[in-house]
């Protein structure tokens, strides 16, 4: 089965005063029809930028996007003209962002913000677009939608605004919804509601999603597959349950250890990963994680690990030399 979205060797760099920042390096991943893919990583690991780059939303200059391809429905997103990719945005692929407080325009009514993508991409009347918008506000469980649609964003609470954002993104039934930290700015209880909603939408509409987050709890709850990003590359990728039950990469293991667990005594110290993310104008040689890795050995310092493991369905892949030495050891 050909995947819905197939990204190969995507790289993004930014020219800054301090030199060239290598935000995303040689990133490859795919998204299947109806799948929810989680991309986790620390801030600055390149998870948002890679999606923005795919959508032609990285400002250039200072940004530069390169890559072999990003195949989507027979088109290569990376080679589309500005005009052509604009037609994809908000129609077949739509996005929602982190902070629903600032992501909605405070000066415009929710109704006009909801309908404008539809009015831009399709020939529909104001009335029809408005009906569709009310329908979607209902779908995302906003009570009294036909009246609330005429309100301004500041009249909604944070969770409600994120629901409005989601409704807005779904107006044209996109094939892919990219959710960039959709729950980060919300209270924990509201987070759970929004995640449930995303799951429900996938059930009802079959929308594929890319969920970008730094929160492993979010990933565990809704994603089918997860990619862990570090310093602009994936270090481990595979089905969610496999990745959580048997993490291979020292970074993934470190991340999982640093999540508070309800089955551990509350006074136990939470473990952390030592050090800081690398400076991306001058990333470390070899494996980018080696300066912080407790299990590093000679090879990690000089040679960058490539994907190891089976790339087949339901398999986990990891980019770490440990994996290879383990495999050799077992032979």
């Amino acid at each position, binding site marked *: 089965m050909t995947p819905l979205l197939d990204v190969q060797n995507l790289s993004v760099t930014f020219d800054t005063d301090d030199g060239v920042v290598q935000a995303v390096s040689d990133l490859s991943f795919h998204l299947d029809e109806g799948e929810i893919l989680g991309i986790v990583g620390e801030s600055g690991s390149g998870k948002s930028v890679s999606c923005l780059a795919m959508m032609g*939303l990285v400002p250039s200059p200072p940004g530069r996007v390169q890559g072999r391809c990003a195949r989507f429905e027979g088109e290569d997103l990376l080679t589309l003209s500005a005009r052509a990719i*604009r037609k*994809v945005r*908000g129609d077949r692929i739509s996005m929602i962002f982190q902070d629903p407080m600032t*992501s909605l*325009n*405070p*000066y415009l009514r929710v109704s006009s913000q909801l309908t404008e993508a539809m009015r*831009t991409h399709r020939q529909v009347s104001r009335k029809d677009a408005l009906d569709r918008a009310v329908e979607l506000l209902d779908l995302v469980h906003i009570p009294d939608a036909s009246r609330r649609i005429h309100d301004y964003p*500041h009249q909604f609470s944070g969770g409600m605004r994120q629901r409005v954002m989601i409704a807005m993104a779904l107006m044209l039934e996109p094939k892919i919804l990219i959710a960039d930290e959709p729950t980060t700015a919300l209270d924990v209880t509201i987070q759970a509601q929004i995640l449930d909603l995303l799951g429900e939408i996938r059930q009802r509409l079959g929308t594929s999603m890319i969920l970008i987050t730094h929160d492993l709890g979010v990933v565990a709850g809704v994603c089918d597959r997860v990619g862990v990003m570090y310093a602009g590359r994936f270090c481990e990728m595979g089905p969610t349950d496999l990745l959580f039950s048997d993490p291979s990469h020292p970074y993934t293991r470190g991340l999982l250890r640093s999540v508070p667990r309800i089955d551990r005594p509350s006074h136990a110290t939470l473990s952390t990963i030592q050090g800081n993310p690398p400076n991306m104008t001058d990333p470390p040689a070899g494996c980018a994680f080696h300066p912080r890795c407790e299990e590093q050995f000679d090879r990690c310092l000089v040679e960058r690990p490539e994907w190891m493991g089976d790339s087949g369905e339901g398999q986990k892949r990891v980019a770490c030399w440990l994996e290879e030495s383990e495999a050799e050891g077992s032979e």
Partner: protein
Amino acid sequence: MARYLFRRILFLPLVLLVLLTASFFLMRAAPGDPFANERGRDPEIQKNLKAKYHLDKPLWVQYGIFLKNLLQGDLGLSTKYKDRTVNEIVAGHLPPSVLLGVIALLLALVVGVATGTVAAVRQNTVFDYSTMAVAMVGISAPTFVVGPLLVLVFAYYLHWFPITGWGSWHELILPAVTLALPFTARISRLMRTGMLEIIRQEFIKTARAKGLTETRIVLRHAIRGALLPVISYLGPATAEIMTGSLVVEKIFQVPGIGYEFVNSALNRDYSLVLGLVAVFGTLLVFMNLLVDIVYGLLDPRIRYE
């Protein structure tokens, strides 16, 4: 909103009363009187003149007479132009000034908003740098330099416009442009700053993610927020245009009220000064009210209570 407006309008007369009372007593507190400069005049004539303008009565009686006449819409007799009432002077000289001011302000708004927006959208390009350079000159160069220069180039050498005069739209252009220049420059800079701030907001990213064109993003999503600083500037700008038109009116021989305003103070023309304070004060107070209303219309988060 309606209640707020009602209350604001209710307060307008009070604001004007305070303004006029302060002006009345300040004017009287200044040394000299309207007839002090006319030396060698018969003391009898001086006395009669003062009696005619009620200047021989106690101050509070004069104030009372002033208020009573004001309520009847009578601004009194000019002490300098003895055959003319202040009402006549205002009626004759205010329209050209208002026309000039309104045109200059509209010109400044249209050109300032347009150039500021384009400069922000094309930040750090030649257009941006040159617009901001011209704006700097526009703010710094005084009207009495710009006016004659424009006359020299466009009237004297190119013969596109008459050198001075008043009456046709043709004669209106040079003075309006001269008056508008510093305001255009300031609005352009305010607009650029406001626009730069807005187009870095998250909701602009959302608009881009919807696949809207850049033009639509700027015109629909960004311009409202970016206009707010410009709108707040319009209040003070109106006051500046009123007082600033004096030089322009002088250069282009416009029969406006700016000239009268300055001269009335120099002549201690009590009734003309107070009359003009009343007219300008009213204009300004209404302009500020208008600014607040427009502000509220542009930004729905603002609640008037």
